[in-house]
Structure formats: C-alpha cells, structure tokens
C-alpha cells in the first residue's frame, strides 16, 4: 500500500485561537481513515486545509510523496482531492447531471446526454442508485449526497473526504453509503471520513485518528481498539474547573415535557419522543453532539416549533394552575403569565437586532408595557446601563449598534436582558460560546444566582467539564432522542461521551 496523502506537523490559527496544533496523519490508497473528535476539535478545519479552503500556518502536506501547496478548491481538484461537505453545494433547479458538470471546462461540445451516460457509468461501477436527470429539489438528502460524491468522482478524485456524511442519513441509507465507500476503497481510493459516531468508526474504517481540542491525540488500528478506548481518547481526562454548585433548595416541577416529537421541513424526525422535567432551583444540563435536536427542543418550549406529538406543561407558581404550551406563540405564552427567558444559539439572528443599539434591544422585551402612545425609554436605558456595568460589556456607550460589539459582548447583552426579565424558566443555548474564561465564570455565576432564586434553568452546553461541574442533572440527547439522564454530581466524562455517541440513527447493524 502506498501513502496517498500525508500531513506533517500542521498548525492553523485563527487570531489567538489555535484550531489545529501540530497535527500529523496519513492515509494510504485503498484505505478508509476515520477522523474522530468532539465538536470544535478541529476536524473540519484540518480537512479544509486539504481541500484548499484554508492554508496551514505551519507544516507540510505531501501527496504521493511530493510536497504540495494547495491554495484553492480548484488546486485540490488538480491533486485529485474531493471533499463532500456537510452542507451540499448544489443548484436546486438543476438536474443531477447538470450539477455534476457545473463549472467544468471539458473539451468538446457540451452535451448533457453524454454527461448522463458518464454518470450512469460511475453509478454502475460503485453501486450508486441515482437518476441523473432528476432535479435536485425533488431529491432526498441521501440522493443529494450521492450527487455530491459522483461530482467529485466525475472530476477524477482519488482522495475523498466526507464531512460527517451520516449525520443526515437514515440507517438504511447509511448502510448503502458504507457499501459504496467500501467498494471505492477496494478500487484503490483513499477515503477520510469525519465523524463522532463510534459504531460507524468501528464498522467502517481501517484506522482511526483522534483529535481533541485541536491537538492530535493519536492513530489506532480499528481492529485493535474498542469503544471505551476511543471515547477516552476523544474526551480526555477530566479537568477541574471549580465552578460553584449549591444544592437545589425545595425543587418543584416547573416544566413537564411529555413525549414530544417534531418533524422538520425535510421530513426528518428531529425530536423523537422526548420526555423530561425541569425543576425550579435546579440547573438541567443538555449535552449532545451539535445538531442532535437541542435547538428544536428549546424552540419547542419557547413556542417557535410546531410539534407533531406530545405536550409541554407549565406549572405556574403564582396561580398554581397548569398550562399546555404546545403550539402556542411566544406572545400567547407570555399572556398566560409564563415567565420564560430564552438565550438562543443564534444571537444576532433570533436574540438581538444587530443594527439597533443596546437600549433598543432591551426594548424588544418591554415595548408592550405602558399605555402611552410614545415609547418609554428611561427604563430600558437604565437596564442597559446596568447590564453594561455589571457584566463589563466593552462598548463605547449604550447607543452603539449591537452588531459592532464583539461576539462575547453581544452574548453578555443578550444574557443580561433575558435574566433581567426575572424569569421562572431560563433556557440558555451555549451561553459561554466565544467568551473568555473570566466572562464565562461571570455567566456561570449569573446562572447559579438564578438557580438560587428558584428559577428552572435549562443549560445547553458543549464542554463536558463545564456541564459536569455546573449542572445538577445532565440530559444527553443523540439523534433527537434522550439517550440518558445522569446526575451531575457523580457522572463521568466517559459515561456522557458514550451516551452522546450512542445515537439510535445511523447504526449499521440494527
């Protein structure tokens, strides 16, 4: 076996953040390599350097033993490298064949029927199931992915990189994809698949390379390893953070989520029979691989998602009544007297209006108050000043448009506003993402204060160390299902890591 591509001591920085630090790995022809790691471990960044989207700051790339410099996706094509991204790059209105030849400068007259023939030939060779004359907008996700793979094969790729290819597939589709990948391997192609699903790694790949927080952990042969070893390599040893955690005082059931399911626009079940209870005076953590349904879950509670099944019950501590929040709009929910605060993942999309200043953004929550024809600005202005001072928001003044602030400061403004609404339920999705250490602790303290005030806090996080030290209970979801609820005081990282990768969808053997 010859080495198809080799990376030596690759380092890539974005500003102060090191995305990849001194990473070395290699793939042979006729081999499938899995690149394993948690969210944000630098897998995609590393692969983007092979496919010409980024350029490494340090280190070398060798293809077929020769050192190369890949400066654009086009140059990657010339080195016979093809990457299949998680987000498909296809023109919906075109047929599969038209997408395959898009942008190619082939010799001879353009004739779409010749292309259709060639696509058929590739499909037959590797066992794809595709109609080249079908339009993309009529295709399922799996068919679209097939078009992407054929696209790179049509361009003659020998090294294929697939970024989480099974994230969007059903188990049957995954099985088909794996069969095709094995056939391509037997044909001598070098294949790298980015994933965090352990069972897929074990059933498909020949070797596994693991990244953790941008660092290269090591490479093992699949035949000589097991789930436990891989999980440990992936999540690493526990780090002490010393986040304060008090015991819940008089916890009461505040929010009861019962058997909810949600189907998204593509017809995929993003939430599947989820049931849990959020209690007052407690922080409930939600852990999971990105895109496992966290966003849809929070949006369902906030009144932004239509549910196909189930109910969401809210116990009102003031009136003692119980209300069903399902399929209610945010305004209806507020009119029921439910004090719900929501820090969404998409800060400037759903949380704040970028072109408005801090005061105006405060008013987004309070503009309905008061009876005067004119808006009352003093209250929101005081609140804005208060937040800027308490949370140390770095801004010239409160009249600065929010979009001009840095990501961390935007986050502080949003969290500050939501907490100031004195909620009974506080939902926060990744509230410390992009914040430095000190600001992160500030947010943890704020969440803890809310907990002490008897608020039911739901915290969606990505750093397992934080979840374990901050939360009273941790609910793990995978593929839209609850894979386990553990006690934050006695849970281990490995336990949660295993639950996270134990998604019901995508398994080859079930």
């Amino acid at each position: 076996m010859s080495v198809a591509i080799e990376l030596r001591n690759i380092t890539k920085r974005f500003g102060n953040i090191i995305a990849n630090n001194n990473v070395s790995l290699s793939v042979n022809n006729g081999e499938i390599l899995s690149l394993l790691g948690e969210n944000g471990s630098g897998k995609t960044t590393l692969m983007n350097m092979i496919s010409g989207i980024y350029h490494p700051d340090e280190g070398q790339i060798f293809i077929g033993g020769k050192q190369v410099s890949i400066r654009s996706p086009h140059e990657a094509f010339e080195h016979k490298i093809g990457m299949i991204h998680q987000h498909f790059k296809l023109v919906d209105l075109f047929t599969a064949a038209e997408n395959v030849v898009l942008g190619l400068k082939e010799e001879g007259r353009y004739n779409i029927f010749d292309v259709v023939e060639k696509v058929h030939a590739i499909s037959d060779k590797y066992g794809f199931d595709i109609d080249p004359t079908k339009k993309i907008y009529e295709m399922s996700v799996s068919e679209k992915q097939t078009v992407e793979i054929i696209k790179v094969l049509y361009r003659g790729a020998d090294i294929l990189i697939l970024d989480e290819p099974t994230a969007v597939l059903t188990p049957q589709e995954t099985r088909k994809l794996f069969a095709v990948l094995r056939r391509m391997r037997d044909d001598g192609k070098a294949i790298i698949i980015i994933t965090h699903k352990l069972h897929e790694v074990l059933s498909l790949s020949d070797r596994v390379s693991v990244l953790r927080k941008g660092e290269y952990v090591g490479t093992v042969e699949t035949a000589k390893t097991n789930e436990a070893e891989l999980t440990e390599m992936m999540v690493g040893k526990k780090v002490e953070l010393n986040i304060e955690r008090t015991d819940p005082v008089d916890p009461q059931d505040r929010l009861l989520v019962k058997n909810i399911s949600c189907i998204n626009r593509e017809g995929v079940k993003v939430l599947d029979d989820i049931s849990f209870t959020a209690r007052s005076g407690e922080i409930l953590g939600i852990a999971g691989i990105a895109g496992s349904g966290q966003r849809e879950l929070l949006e369902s509670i906030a009144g932004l998602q239509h549910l196909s099944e189930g109910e969401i019950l809210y116990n009102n501590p003031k009136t003692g009544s119980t209300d069903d929040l399902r399929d209610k709009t945010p305004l209806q929910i507020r009119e029921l007297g439910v004090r719900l605060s929501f820090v969404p993942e998409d800060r400037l999309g759903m949380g704040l209006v970028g072109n408005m200043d801090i005061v105006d953004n405060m008013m987004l929550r309070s503009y309905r108050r008061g009876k005067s024809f004119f808006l009352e600005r003093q209250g929101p202005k005081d609140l804005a000043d208060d937040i800027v001072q308490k949370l140390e928001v770095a801004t010239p003044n409160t009249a600065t448009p929010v979009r001009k602030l840095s990501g961390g400061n935007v986050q502080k403004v949003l969290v500050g506003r939501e907490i100031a609404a004195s909620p009974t339920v506080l939902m926060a999705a990744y509230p410390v993402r992009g914040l430095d250490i000190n600001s992160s602790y500030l947010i943890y303290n704020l969440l803890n204060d809310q907990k002490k005030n008897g608020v039911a806090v739901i915290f969606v996080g990505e750093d397992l160390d934080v979840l374990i030290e901050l939360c009273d209970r941790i609910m793990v979801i995978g593929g839209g299902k609850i894979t386990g609820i553990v006690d934050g005081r006695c849970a281990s990282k490995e336990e949660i890591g295993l639950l996270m990768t134990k998604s019901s969808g995508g398994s080859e053997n079930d």
Partner: protein
Amino acid sequence: MINTIASFISAAIIQSIPLLYGATGEIITEKSGNLNLGIPGIMYVGGISGIIGGYIYERMAVEPSAFLCIIIPLLSTLIGSGLMALIYSFLTITLRANQNVTGLALTTFGIGIGNFFGGSLLKLFGESGSISLLTTGNYYKTKLPFADDLGLFGETFLSFGFLAYLAIAVAIVSSIILNRTRTGLNLRAVGENPATADAAGINVTKYKYLATVIGGAISGLGGLYFVMDYTAGAWTNNGFGDRGWLAVAIVIFALWKPSSAIFSSFLFGGLYIICVKIPGLSGAAKELIKMLPYLVTIIVLVFTSARKKREHQPPAHLGMSYFREDR
C-alpha cells in the same frame, strides 16, 4: 375584415419589437441574479445614443452611405446602453449597492440624459428646430427586398426594418445559449446559487458583469428601433412612454424564457396598440385598455406564485448581492 386583422397584426409586431429587445436583455441580466430596474432608463439612453451618433454622422457626411448610417447609430446605442449597464454593474456587483435602489436611480438618470440631449442636441450644434434624421430613419426602415411581392403575407410579416428580425434572432440565440451551452449553464447557476457556482470554479463576478452589460446593450437596441424605425429618425422627449416597464413586465410574464418572450412581446404589443385600433373609444376607456398588459402580468404572478412550480420562479438569488464567505 382580413385587411383590418392584417394591419392590426402588423401594428402589434411593430409595437412588440422594442419590448422584445428590452425583455431579452433583462432576462439575460436577471439570469445572473441582477434585477436591473434601470432597463427603462437604459433603453431610453439607447435611443438617444443612436440619435446622437446618427445626427453627428448625417451632419458631417456630404453623402451619407447606407452602411455607415446603419452602423454608427447601432454602435452608439450599444456603447451608450452598455455603459449604463456598466454603471449598474459596478454599483451592485463591486460596491454591492442595493439593486432596486440602483436600478430605479439609473432609470431616472437615463431619462434625464435622454431628455437633456433630446432638447439641446441641435442647440449644441447651433441649429434650431426638432431632431429628425430622415436619411438614417429611411435606411433603418428598409423592408426585405421581396416583401412587396408576397401580397398580404409580405405586408403583414415581412414589411419591417432589419432590427425587427434581429430582435427575434437575438431572443432565439439567447434561448439556445442559456439552455444548451456550458456558458448558459454556468450563468444560470450564478443566478440560482452563486456560492455553489463559486465553489465549482465559476467566476461569479465576471459572469454577472458580462450578463448585465450584454443584457443592457441588447435592451438599448429596443430604444434604437423605436427612434430609427418606429418614429423614422424623429425624437420627441418622453415619446418612448412606459415601454421600458412593459419590458420588465414581459420578463415576468414570459417566466424568464427568451423564447416565450417573443410571443409575450407580441401579445403585449397588441394590447398596447389595441385601444387605437378600436374605433370610437373615449379617452378614459383607452387608458383602461392600456392597463391590460400590467393586469395580465399580475394575474400571471398570482398563478405562478400559487402553483409554486420551481421552474416558473425567478432565479433564486435575484436581487441579492453575493458575498463570498470570509476565509
């Protein structure tokens, strides 16, 4: 009776030619994702540019030759309207200005230029009176040589100047390029999904510039036909009317297909002229009938929007600037 119908068809064709140029040019432009609402202004500038070129040549030449009488206004128009489209391209593609605002500003600007030169071209050369380029106009109006021998058929379908046939040829060629060539495929991809086109190695900026400038130049020919053939070389300020907006409406009516634009233009041309052809209409009734093309366009919009067939929708990225993601 048959003569009345024949003369109506002939009149409708004459009316349809400026519309067809405008619509074909705008379709090519919109296929690249640029919604150029400056088309009415660009067509207007196309007309006045042809007039300026023709006037200067007629003034300077002792014995104007047929070839130069045709080619000089033609080139002036292509340059004038092409430059207008280039302004639009620079503002919206390079500077990423809002397309609607830029287009509307360009229409106002173009009509201003047209009316300025229309009113003062003769004064600039120390003459008085109104612009009338009879010689040039006659060359543009020359019928096909065998038109008179074919009786009513020749009179109805073949009695037009060469620009009329060129309009149909341009629409057909555009249709073939858009649907049957690599260039057309790439251009449509740019208008549908520029990020994908970019990733596939297509130079999005180049395609947008070329489509917009070529589209603008083609639209300008509609203005040239109007001033040289329809009015036989005479210029009246604002004589072009709302034909530019009608061309934009045809783009929607024809569902962004140049081949359909041929028939659509004929229909709109007929609706535009029918009020003159029906005897005994009051002024108010004429105005009401003149609204028909727009009414038909709204009905088409209602139907295509309700049916939601993807092929009948405007290019998906129409009206939006393209930013490549920061790397």
